[in-house]
C-alpha cells in the first residue's frame, strides 16, 4: 500500500471552514434578540435626540433676531396711537428689518382659547397692542436694551422682550431631553457589552476542551478569538438588522402621530436624510461593539492559560 502524501507546512490565520471549528461558540439563543432590542431602543433614543435637535434649530432660526413690543394701555384710542408711534420709531431704526403690528383680530384668535371669544372685543377685557420686530442679525442682550430704550423714550408704557427669552426654558428642556437620550444610548451600549461579555464567557467555558485542542495544535489566541468574533458578529448583525427594522417602525408610527398634531413646533422636528443615515449606522456600531467586546473578553481569558 502506498504511503500517504505528506504536505509542506505553512502559517497564518484560520481560514475557510474554520468557523466550523466551534459551532457551539455560536452564542445564538437569546443573543441576537438581546442585540435587536438594544439596537431598537438606541435607534428610538437617537431619533428622539435628532428630532429635538432639528426642532430646536428650526425654532431658533424662526425667532432669532425676533422681539416683541407690548403696549399695555386700557383705552383703545390711546393704545392705538402709542402703537403707531412705536411702529414709526422702530421703522426708522437702521438695525430693524421688519416691523409688524399684530392685527387685533389675530390677537383675539390667539387669546380666544384662553379667555373665551365673548370676553374680547370692544367692550371686553382690554388687550395689549403687540408689535413683532425682526432685527437684522441675531438678538443680543445689548441690542435688546438699545431697542427697549429707544421705544420707551417715545412710549413709556411699552415693554420689549426678545422672543428667544420667552422660549429659553423650552430650549433648556430640549437640551435636557437630548442629554437624557444620550445617557440612554450610553447605558444601552454598556448593557449590550455586558451581555456580550457574559455570553462570551459562557461560550468559552462550554468550549474549554476544544480551545485546549486548538492551542495544542498551534492555534493562536487571535485565531480562537476570531472564531468567537465571527460568531458574535453574525449574531449582532442579524439582531441589529431586526432592531433597526423595529426602531424604524416605531419612529414612523410616532412620526405619523406627531404629524397629526399639526403643531408648528413639532412640525420642525422631522428627520432629514442625514438623520436617517445616522440611524442606519447604529446597527453597525452595535456589531463593532459586540465584536470588540468579544475579542477583549476572549483574549483576556486565554491569556491566563499556557
Amino acid at each position: 500500500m502506498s504511503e500517504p502524501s505528506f504536505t509542506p507546512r505553512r502559517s497564518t490565520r484560520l481560514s475557510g471552514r474554520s468557523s466550523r471549528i466551534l459551532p457551539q461558540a455560536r452564542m445564538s439563543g437569546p443573543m441576537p434578540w438581546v442585540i435587536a432590542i438594544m439596537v431598537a431602543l438606541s435607534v428610538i433614543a437617537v431619533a428622539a435626540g435628532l428630532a429635538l435637535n432639528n426642532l430646536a434649530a428650526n425654532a431658533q432660526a424662526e425667532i432669532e433676531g425676533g422681539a416683541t413690543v407690548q403696549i399695555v394701555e386700557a383705552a383703545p384710542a390711546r393704545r392705538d396711537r402709542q402703537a403707531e408711534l412705536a411702529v414709526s420709531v422702530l421703522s426708522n431704526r437702521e438695525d430693524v428689518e421688519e416691523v409688524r403690528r399684530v392685527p387685533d383680530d389675530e390677537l383675539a384668535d390667539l387669546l380666544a382659547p384662553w379667555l373665551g371669544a365673548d370676553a374680547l372685543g370692544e367692550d371686553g377685557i382690554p388687550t395689549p397692542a403687540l408689535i413683532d420686530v425682526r432685527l437684522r442679525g441675531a438678538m443680543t442682550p445689548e441690542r435688546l436694551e438699545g431697542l427697549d430704550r429707544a421705544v420707551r423714550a417715545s412710549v413709556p408704557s411699552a415693554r420689549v422682550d426678545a422672543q428667544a427669552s420667552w422660549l429659553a426654558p423650552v430650549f433648556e428642556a430640549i437640551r435636557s431631553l437630548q442629554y437624557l437620550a444620550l445617557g440612554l444610548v450610553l447605558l444601552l451600549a454598556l448593557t449590550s457589552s455586558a451581555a456580550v461579555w457574559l455570553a462570551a464567557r459562557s461560550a468559552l467555558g462550554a468550549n474549554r476542551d476544544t480551545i485546549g485542542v486548538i492551542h495544542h495544535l498551534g492555534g493562536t489566541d487571535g485565531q480562537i478569538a476570531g472564531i468567537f468574533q465571527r460568531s458574535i458578529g453574525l449574531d449582532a448583525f442579524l439582531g441589529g438588522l431586526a432592531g433597526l427594522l423595529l426602531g424604524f417602525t416605531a419612529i414612523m408610527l410616532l412620526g405619523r402621530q406627531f404629524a397629526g398634531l399639526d403643531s408648528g413646533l413639532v412640525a420642525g422636528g422631522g428627520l432629514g436624510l442625514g438623520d436617517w443615515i445616522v440611524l442606519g449606522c447604529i446597527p453597525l456600531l452595535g456589531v463593532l461593539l459586540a465584536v470588540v467586546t468579544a475579542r477583549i473578553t476572549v483574549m483576556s481569558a486565554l491569556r491566563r492559560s499556557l
Partner: protein
Amino acid sequence: MSEATTSIVQFDNVGLRYGTDREVLSDISFTLYPGSFYFLTGASGAGKTSMLRLLYLAQRPSRGMIRMFGTDVITLPRKNLPAFRRRIGTVFQDFRLVPHLSAFDNVALPLRISGMSESEIRKPVSDMLEWVGLDHRSDARPATLSGGEQQRVAIARAVIARPEVLVADEPTGNVDPDMAVKLLRLFEALNRLGTTVVVATHDVHLLRKVPDSLIMRLDKGRLSDPTGALRYPPRREPART
C-alpha cells in the same frame, strides 16, 4: 553528520510536581537527535504522559531546563508557543478529538490552523484517512467511531502537517496488533522523512517492531537507558531510504 549531532530536544535536570505533591518526574536529563525513533516505556503511572506533556509544551516543569529546536522553551513568551507547537505533532492518550467535527475536519484542523487553503487540504486529508483505513468514515463524528477508529483519527491529525517532532502517547492502546503494526509503519514513514518520533508505550512487544528504535525507560519518575539512547547520538544506517 553535523546535523545528526545537533539536538532537537534537550532536558537538563528536569523535575515536575503537580501542585504540592511529591515529584512525578525527577532529575530527567536526556537529548533527542533529529530523525531518530524513540520509545518511552515504563509501567502505568511511571510518568510517561507527564514527560510527554512537557515535550508537547502543555506543561512547564517545576525545575530544570528544556530546550527545543535550540531554544529555551521555559522562558519562552506565551505568544511564541503556537509557532513551536506547530512544529510538534501530538497524539494524546485520550485522543482529544473535537466532538462536533467530522473525522475529516478533525484531521484537517492542523492544516487549517496553519493557513492552508481548502483546495490544498482535501487530497492530503483524504490520503491520510485512507492510510489509517478510515476513508469510508470521513464524515463520521468521533462519538460514532470506535475507540480504535478514534485513535487512528487522532494519529492522522498528529502527522498530517508533517511535524518535526511527533509525540505519541500510547498510540496503539486501542487497536488490534495488525493495526498497531500498520500505525508504527506510518510513524516510521514519517521518521524516514526526517521527523523525530517519540512513542510512549507500556507494551514491550511494540519495541521490537521498530528495529532501529532507541529506548528510554521511566521508573517511578526516573529515567534509565537500556539502549544508550540518552548517552549517544543515534547511528543512522545510510542504506535505508
